[in-house]
């Protein structure tokens, strides 16, 4: 339960921080994570395999 609450707190802090909502600057650039050094994990489903 402690782990669950801690994880929830970390995620909430991460995603609700004001910096993450300042998404488009005055020049129209979107503040996403497509930048040098970023990593991501994807979960995907497909309609067929072979």
């Amino acid at each position, binding site marked *: 339960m402690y782990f669950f609450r801690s994880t929830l707190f970390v995620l909430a802090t991460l995603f609700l921080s004001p910096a993450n909502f300042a998404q488009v600057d005055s020049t129209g650039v979107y503040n*996403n994570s497509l930048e*040098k050094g970023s990593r991501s994990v994807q979960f995907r489903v497909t*309609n067929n395999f072979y």
Partner: protein
Amino acid sequence: MFHRSAKLAYRLGVGLNFGIDSDDSELTADNSFTRVRDTETTSNQFGLSINATRLKYFTPKKRMSFYWGAGPEVGFRFSDRDVNTNSTFEDSSMGISESSTQSIALNIGGILVFGTEFFLHKMISLTAEYRSRSAYTWTSEERDQIDTSSSGDVVNQNTSTTKHQVFIGSSSVLLGLSAYF
């Protein structure tokens, strides 16, 4: 996925596939005589593939980013299929047929992708991707069949088959969720 720059990323992908299928069919011919053929089929398959893709983003600093990419892929698939058939004519046995087929397929090829990534948040995005795959596939299949006639005669047949296939442009659509860290 690892970004070398805003426009360039490398992606390592692992694909898994499972399939379980069970089928029971009964064919009845009811005329002046009654003939019944009952067939039970079960099949299982498991597949694994690994690919590495180099992705190029056209418009990285937009809420919706388009990209394309290409890279090599290798994979294998194992499948197992059992078919049991029991035939009767006027309630007396016409024979039983049992077959078991195992196959393993190995493939090596490449993939070409074109997709779009929509950012819900700075660190979370949804992805829709069109993928075209071309590959050479080697398949080895072993089939054992035992036919038992109504008089008790048993015929045993074993078949080994090796196939070489090349396919170009097998396409699929992938939907995904990405989390950046």
